[in-house]
């Protein structure tokens, strides 16, 4: 009868400063030469990508908050009126095309919903991938609803709507340099739009990556991070819209 007994005393390294804490291996399952058994640890890579996204969102936030603080201060800043030689408030509230902007907000919210659905869809696909590789196993539908493509469409529709809002502002006489308030409106919406366009480019990359047959776990990481980025862009837009409307 086989008995198992440990003849090697387990030694836990406990010396040095900082206690004897240890980190799990950073890469690979098993072995200590990188990939180990040859299967990359996608769970860890996902966490790393999400960490990278969180770090990326901090400077984006700082960028927008600095413009918002400039907006708030400028709104209350009196300027010299050269004709009367007195200080007056020269903040002209911009006549925003509210209905159009609300529609755009709805489009972006819908885009957030579809992005989340795409994220969950590919998470399920990634979780089921090992099962799918078992010969003889079928999991039914191989391709679900193209939530990713719909998100790209909704995002593009949002940007088109923003462009239309700019045209309407111009029709109402508010150009970039018309007043301080109009400058901020164009600046904030343009900056947000550029960041959103970046997100669309990454989504298109995710779509093409899928065509290049990268493993679904790798695609999942891209879609996951982009979906979270999309949610951040939506919340950011709500904040910008609220600022421009309620503090117009």
């Amino acid at each position, binding site marked *: 009868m086989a008995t198992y007994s440990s003849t090697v005393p387990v*030694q836990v*390294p*406990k*010396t*040095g*400063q*900082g*206690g004897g*804490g*240890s*980190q*799990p*291996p*950073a*890469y690979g399952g098993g072995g*200590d*030469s*990188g990939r180990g058994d040859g299967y*990359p640890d996608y769970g860890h*890579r*996902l*966490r*790393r*990508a999400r*960490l*990278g*996204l969180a*770090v*990326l969102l*901090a*400077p*984006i*936030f*700082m*960028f*927008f908050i*600095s*413009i918002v603080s*400039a907006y708030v*201060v*400028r709104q209350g*800043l009196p*300027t*010299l009126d*050269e004709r009367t030689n007195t200080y007056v408030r*020269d903040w002209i509230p911009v006549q925003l095309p509210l209905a159009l902007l609300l529609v755009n907000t709805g489009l972006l919210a819908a885009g957030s919903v579809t992005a989340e659905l795409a994220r969950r869809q590919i998470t399920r696909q990634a979780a089921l991938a090992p099962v799918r590789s078992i010969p003889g196993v079928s999991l039914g539908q191989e391709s679900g609803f193209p939530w990713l493509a719909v998100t790209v469409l909704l995002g593009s529709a949002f940007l088109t709507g923003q462009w239309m809002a700019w045209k309407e502002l111009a029709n109402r006489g508010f150009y*970039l*340099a018309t*007043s*301080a308030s109009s*400058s901020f409106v164009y*600046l904030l919406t343009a*900056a947000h739009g550029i960041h959103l366009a970046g997100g669309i480019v990454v989504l298109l990359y995710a779509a093409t990556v899928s065509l290049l047959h990268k493993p679904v776990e*790798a695609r999942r*990481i*891209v879609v996951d*991070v982009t979906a979270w980025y999309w949610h951040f862009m939506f919340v950011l837009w709500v904040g910008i819209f609220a600022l421009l409307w309620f503090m117009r």
Partner: protein
Amino acid sequence: MVAQDAHAHAAPQGFIRKYIFSLDHKVIGIQYIFLALTAVFVGMFLSLLMRVHMIWPTAVLPLVGEIKPETYLQLLTMHGTIMVFFVLTTAPQGGFGNYFLPIQIGAPDMAFPVLNMLSFWTTFVAFVTLLAAFFVTGGAPLHGWTGYAPLSALTNSGPGEQLGADLWVTSIAIFCIASLMGALNFITTTLDLRAKGMTMMRLPLTVWAWFITAILGLLAFGVLLSAGILLLMDRNLGTSFYVPLVVVNGQVMGHKGGSPLLWQHLFWFFGHPEVYIAILPGMGVASQLLSTFARKPIFGYKAMVYAIMAIGLLGFVVWGHHMFMSGMSPYSAFAFSIMTMCIGVPSAIKTFNWLGTLYKSKIRFQTPMLYAIGFVSLFVSGGLSGPFLAQPVLDIPLHDTAFVVGHFHLIMGVAAIFGMFAGMTYWFPKMFGRMMNETWGRIHCLLTLIGTYCIFMPMHYLGMAAQPRRYSQFTEVAYLQHLLPLNRFITYAAILTISAQFIFLINLLWSMFKGPKASDNPWEATTLEWTTATPPPHDNFGGHTPVVYHGPYEYSVPGAPKDYVMQTDPAQVAAH
């Protein structure tokens, strides 16, 4: 790009992939160092022209010709911009940090190697864009590295303020993007790629410094980017963020209602963390080297870590001390002044801990150690004039005088540079497999130390005697005549000190090819980079992942067989 496996790229083949568009953090680190080396010699040449002009204003110089007042302003603008951005923010962090952060934490590369490569080449594009300003119509901008509006926001405010200033702002905006990419990499790598056993409180202080510096950069450069974009809009699109109603040469400009103070707030909100970005890596290197060469653990490791964090945190709430003369409320000035004085506390903690590390130690006076000790000396000298300037009342006579110039040059222009010299001589054996020449290193260290003290110490006196900064000529100003001999002395010292830098350059370049071969651990240091081959292989550790058992400063441990215990040494040592 986001989901790169850190070591997924095999060793590259071909010259382009190996040396130009390399994804290897070691190559990228060396690229940053050579970029900074180029930038520092350009910047030094500009400062030489400035110093020569100050005492011989009518001289016609070879290659440059006569330096007119506006040319002087262009020189100082580009000198400041090149030095602050392309030397002090690239070499300590992007150069040494890129090379050694992954190795010191036991990782095979940075978290996002493609992003790393992009961050270097974006910095390069920013550098080329900036240098292009010299060659366009009108030349380089003349609004100072601080770029105050409305001078910088109007295209007709002076020579160089058209295309040259646009190139300047564009270069800085591109640099912001590059720095943010780099910061992202550093933070993610430090948090996520540490080897087994490498807890946060076992990190070398160099890694802590790079980590906190990256956080500072992450939060500050976004604000500079927004400031730059607003400036570009004011200059080219007719907006009035920074420009009030102004008249230039009798012509009413189309701007109205803007605030020059907005630029100052946005710029200095970035600008103050920026100077801590410039100095913190040098502090990390100093801590590392003082401990290694004194064969003694760093005094108060935990205090050092918390001090770095405190300096980083406090650095965000003191920007107003650059604006005491802007007409701000005295209550705001009071608040900023108090916070600025508070920053002196963690800085002093670090300084006393450095001294405590040296106390009763057996110092090995090799060249890296000499630079590290020089760093402490210069940090104290430059830092002590800070609390002077932190008093609004004292800032009234001292603002925009040579006193300020002496203060920030001693700290940034010399102490931080000594941090780079120290890092270079210390890590040279690991990077290039050879040793730098010890004798010439000592000569260079001594000449530079004495020379820079001769240049910048007298500036405190000059400032108190009311010599203004950024003035192109004062040889004909009556109340400044008695300061001319001292200015001449400074210029001669500058000429000699700049000449001495060629000793370092020649030592560096010669030793890269002809220096004596180095062993894997010539300094008998404990951190992870000294456990691997020289130079390190492509994945840093030759196929195996290190496991860490000790902290980074296990020197002269009682009961240990040697006077140092490597971090990866599994031997148990009695608790001490």
